C-alpha cells in the first residue's frame, strides 16, 4: 500500500513537472496576439481628460487623428484626405477620407470632427492657441469642414496632428459633446484597435482587438503617420507594476514587450539573444529638468537661479540612474532637445565643464543669504527620485541650505501647487512635448498658472509670434529668441537627455521606433 501511494505521488509529481515545465511559453506560442507591459496601468480611458502619457498611448491605439507626425517630425494627413488654404491664410477647408467608421459601425462625419475639436481645444496647450485664433469652425458636408481664423495660425495642421498630450483625437459627436472636465465612460474611436470592455480586468489585463473595419492610408507606416495596418488579432496589455518582474517575465517568454525595463537590467537584456532592446533618438528621447519656483525667495532672484547652470553636469543624473552612454546625449544645451527640428543653444550660459567651484563663485556674487531651499523628491519614480537627490547633493556642496522632502508623486503634484511650499523638483518629459517651443512645459507656460510661475514679457511676445510665423525659417529664429530668454530667466535647468529604451522578444519585426508604444505594422516572424 505504501509503495502504491509513493508511486502515485511520484506520478503526480512527474505529471505536474511535465505540465508546468512549459510555464511561461504562452505568449511565445500565441499565434496572433502580443502581450505588452506598458509604463503604467491604463486607468483613464478618456484621452481629452488627462495629460497622462499612458492615456495618450491608449488614445493612439483606439482613436485616430486628423493629422499625424511622421518620424522626421513632419505633420502628415491621417483621417484627412485633402485640404486647402485661402490666399489670406485665414480659411482652411478639410475633406475626410472615404470609408472611415467608428467602432460602433457609424460613419465618421465632419460634425463628429467639429465636436471633437471643440472638446479638445478646451484642454490642450496647442488647442487653446488654435481656439483663440479661430473665428468659426463649421461642418460643411458629411465629410468636409472648415476652420475660419481671426488671424493667421501657421501651426494649424501641427496642432491637429502633434502628439503633445492631450492629443486631438476624434470621437463621435454624442461623446464629444461631453464637457472636457467630465470623464467619458464610453470608448468609441475609429482607430486601428477596438477596446474590448468585456475582457478588461482592471489591475490585470486590457485587451485591444484589431479593428477589421479600419481603412489604413496607402503610405507606409512612419511613426504616428501612414498606414496603420494591424497584423495581430489582439493586443493584450498586462499591468505589472514591478519593472524587475516585467523584465524577468520578458526573459521567460511570458510577455513580448516591455516599455520601460529597468535601466540596470538593460545589459542583461542586451545579452539575451531572444530579446531586442529598442533605443530612441530625437523627439522620442526624454529630457530631465530641475523646475524652479520663481515666486519664492531666494529663487525669485534670477541671479540665484542662474547659479544652477554652473553646477548641473548633465552626465551625473543619467549615470546615477544606471544609464550607459549609448542611451544619453551628453551635454545637450538645447531646451528643445538635441536632434530635433528646433534644436538651439542660443543664449546658453551653461559652461563647458560645470563644477561645484564654478557655482560657488557664481553664488558668492549673488544676494543669497542662507535661505532654506526645499527640494521635492518623488520617490516612486526613478528619474525624479534620483535627479532630486543629486540636485540636493550639488546644492549643499555649493553652499545652499537644502531640505530634501521625500514623498510620492501624487504628493509632489499637490505640494507643487502651493507657491510657498517648495523651490525645486526634478522631473522629466518626452521630446514629443518639449521639442516645440509653444508646447514646452517650461518655456510655453510663461505667465500661465502652472507650478513654477515664471512670467516674462519678452518671452510672451516670442511665444505669441511663434504660431503666427509663416515660414519654418522664421519659426527657427523665434526658437532662438525663446531659448535666449529661457537662459536669461531660467524657468528650469536641464539635467540630461536620455532614452528610456523598450525591450521585446526578438520574434517580432516591424516595430515602430517610437516612445509612444504603438502596435500596428509589426508582425511575428
Amino acid at each position, binding site marked *: 500500500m505504501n509503495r502504491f501511494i509513493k508511486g502515485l505521488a511520484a506520478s503526480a509529481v512527474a505529471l505536474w*513537472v511535465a*505540465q*508546468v*515545465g*512549459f*510555464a*511561461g511559453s504562452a505568449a511565445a506560442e500565441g499565434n496572433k496576439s502580443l502581450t505588452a507591459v506598458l509604463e503604467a*496601468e491604463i*486607468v*483613464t*480611458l478618456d484621452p481629452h*481628460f*488627462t*495629460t*497622462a502619457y499612458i*492615456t495618450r498611448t491608449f488614445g493612439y491605439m483606439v482613436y485616430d487623428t486628423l493629422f499625424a507626425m511622421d518620424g522626421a517630425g513632419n505633420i502628415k494627413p491621417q483621417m484627412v484626405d485633402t485640404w486647402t488654404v485661402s490666399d489670406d491664410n485665414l480659411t482652411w477647408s478639410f475633406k475626410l477620407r472615404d470609408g472611415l467608421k467608428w467602432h460602433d459601425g457609424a460613419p465618421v462625419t465632419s460634425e463628429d470632427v467639429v465636436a471633437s475639436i471643440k472638446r479638445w481645444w478646451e*484642454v490642450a496647450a496647442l488647442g487653446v492657441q488654435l481656439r483663440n485664433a479661430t473665428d468659426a469652425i463649421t461642418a460643411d458636408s458629411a465629410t468636409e469642414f472648415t476652420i475660419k481664423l481671426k488671424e493667421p495660425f501657421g501651426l494649424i495642421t501641427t496642432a491637429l496632428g502633434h502628439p503633445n*498630450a492631450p492629443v486631438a483625437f476624434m470621437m463621435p459627436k454624442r461623446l464629444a459633446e461631453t464637457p472636457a*472636465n*467630465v*470623464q467619458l*465612460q464610453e470608448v468609441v474611436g475609429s482607430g486601428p484597435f477596438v477596446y474590448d470592455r468585456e475582457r478588461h*480586468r*482592471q*489591475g*490585470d489585463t486590457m485587451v485591444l482587438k484589431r479593428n477589421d473595419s479600419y481603412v489604413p492610408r496607402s503610405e507606409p507606416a512612419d511613426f504616428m503617420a501612414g498606414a496603420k495596418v494591424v497584423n495581430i488579432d489582439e493586443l493584450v496589455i*498586462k*499591468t*505589472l*507594476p*514591478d519593472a*524587475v*518582474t*516585467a523584465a*524577468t*517575465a520578458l*526573459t*521567460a517568454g*511570458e510577455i513580448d514587450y516591455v516599455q520601460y525595463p529597468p535601466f540596470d537590467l538593460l545589459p542583461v537584456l542586451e545579452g539575451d539573444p531572444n530579446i531586442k532592446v529598442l533605443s530612441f533618438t530625437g523627439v522620442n528621447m526624454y529630457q530631465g529638468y530641475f523646475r524652479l519656483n520663481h515666486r519664492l525667495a531666494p529663487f525669485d532672484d534670477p541671479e540665484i537661479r542662474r547659479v544652477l547652470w554652473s553646477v548641473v553636469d548633465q552626465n551625473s543624473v543619467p549615470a546615477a540612474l544606471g544609464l550607459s552612454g549609448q542611451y544619453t546625449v551628453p551635454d545637450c544645451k538645447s531646451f528643445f532637445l538635441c536632434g530635433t527640428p528646433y534644436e538651439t543653444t542660443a543664449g546658453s550660459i551653461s559652461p563647458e565643464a560645470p563644477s561645484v567651484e564654478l557655482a560657488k563663485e557664481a553664488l558668492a556674487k549673488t544676494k543669497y543669504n542662507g535661505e532654506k531651499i526645499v527640494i521635492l523628491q518623488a520617490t*516612486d519614480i526613478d528619474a525624479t527620485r534620483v535627479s532630486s537627490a543629486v540636485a540636493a547633493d550639488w546644492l549643499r556642496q555649493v553652499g545652499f541650505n537644502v531640505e530634501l522632502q521625500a*514623498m*510620492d*508623486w*501624487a*504628493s509632489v*503634484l*499637490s*505640494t507643487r*501647487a502651493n507657491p510657498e511650499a517648495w523651490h525645486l523638483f526634478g*522631473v522629466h*518629459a518626452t521630446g514629443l*512635448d518639449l521639442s516645440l517651443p509653444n508646447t514646452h*512645459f517650461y518655456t510655453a*507656460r510663461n505667465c*500661465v*498658472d*502652472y507650478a513654477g510661475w515664471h512670467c516674462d514679457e519678452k518671452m510672451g511676445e516670442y511665444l505669441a509670434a511663434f504660431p503666427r510665423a509663416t515660414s519654418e525659417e522664421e519659426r527657427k529664429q523665434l526658437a532662438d529668441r525663446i531659448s535666449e530668454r529661457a537662459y536669461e530667466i531660467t524657468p528650469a535647468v536641464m539635467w540630461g537627455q536620455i532614452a528610456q529604451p523598450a525591450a521585446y522578444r526578438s520574434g517580432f519585426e516591424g516595430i515602430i521606433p517610437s516612445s509612444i508604444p504603438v502596435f500596428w505594422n509589426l508582425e511575428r516572424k
Partner: protein
Amino acid sequence: MYKPIASRLISIVPVLFVVSIVVFSLLYLTPGDPAHVIAGPNATAADVEKIREALGLNDSFLVRYASWLGDIARLDFGNSIMNGTPVVELIAQRIEPTLSLMFLTIILAVVVAVPMGVLAAAKVNTIADRLVMLFAISAFSVPVFIIGYVLARYFALELRWFPVQGYAYLADGVLPWLRHLVLPSVALGLVYIALIARITRAAMLEVLSEDYIRTARAKGLRSKRILFLHALRNASNPIVTVIGVGVALLIGGAVVTESVFGIPGLGRLTIDAILRRDYPVIQGIMLLFSFVYVLVNLLIDICYVVLDPRIRY
C-alpha cells in the same frame, strides 16, 4: 454560544464606524489630491480646479464624510474617482486572487509549520531543533520581496516549473490556478511558517512538561500519539491565536507579494488607490479589511470553544 456570536457580529457595526472615521480623517489630512493625478503633471491650475469641482473635492470634510456615510448606509460604496468604476465591482474583481493567495498560504503554513514546531519541541536542544529555529529566524529576517525574486529566478526563469508572474482565475482551471500561486504562497508563507513554528514549539514545550504527558509516557503510549493527540491539542489555543493574528500579517505581506508576482489582488488595488489618492476605493478596501479582521477574530474565539470545552463565553 449563539448569543455571544450574535453580539460579536453586531459589534462589527461600531467597529467599522470608528474605522471609517479614522480612515476618512487620515485621507483628508494626507497630502495629495486625486484631481492632480487625474489631470496629469502637465495640467494647469485651472484644469485641476475644474476636475476638483466636478468631483466635489472642494466640499468640506463633514459634507464629504456625511455624504459618503449616507451612501454606505444604502450599501453604495461609491465609484472610483479615477475612472468611475463602482468600488464594489473593483473589489469583486480583485478579491479572488487575494483570497486564493491567503488561503493557500495559510494551508501551506499550517501543514509545514505545525509539524516543524512539534518536531522542534520533541527534539528540543538537538540538531533538528536548532535547524528549525535557524530556519525560523532566517525566514523572519529576509524580506518577502527578496524571497519572491529568488524563487522567481530559480523556479520560474531557470527551471521553468512555474510562471514568473500573473494569476489564473479558478474558472480557467485548477491546475493553472495552482501553478500561478505556488511561488507567491511560498514567498508569503515563509514568515508565517516561521511564526507558527516558533509558537507551536513554545506551546508544545510547555505542555510536554505537564504531568499528564509523563503519565501517558509511563503508560507506554506511542510517542507520535502523545505528541499529536494529547500534547498538540492542549497546545493548540496559542497556535490558533497566532494563525488568526497572522491574517493581518498576510494582508500586509500580500501587498508586496502581489506586486512582485504581478497578481491583480486587493493588495495591489490598495497600493494603486493610495498612490492615486482614489479615496472611495481606499475607504472601501479598509472597511473590507476591518470586517475580515473582526470576522477572523470571531472564528478564533469559536475555535477556542471547539478545541477546549472548558472555555465558556
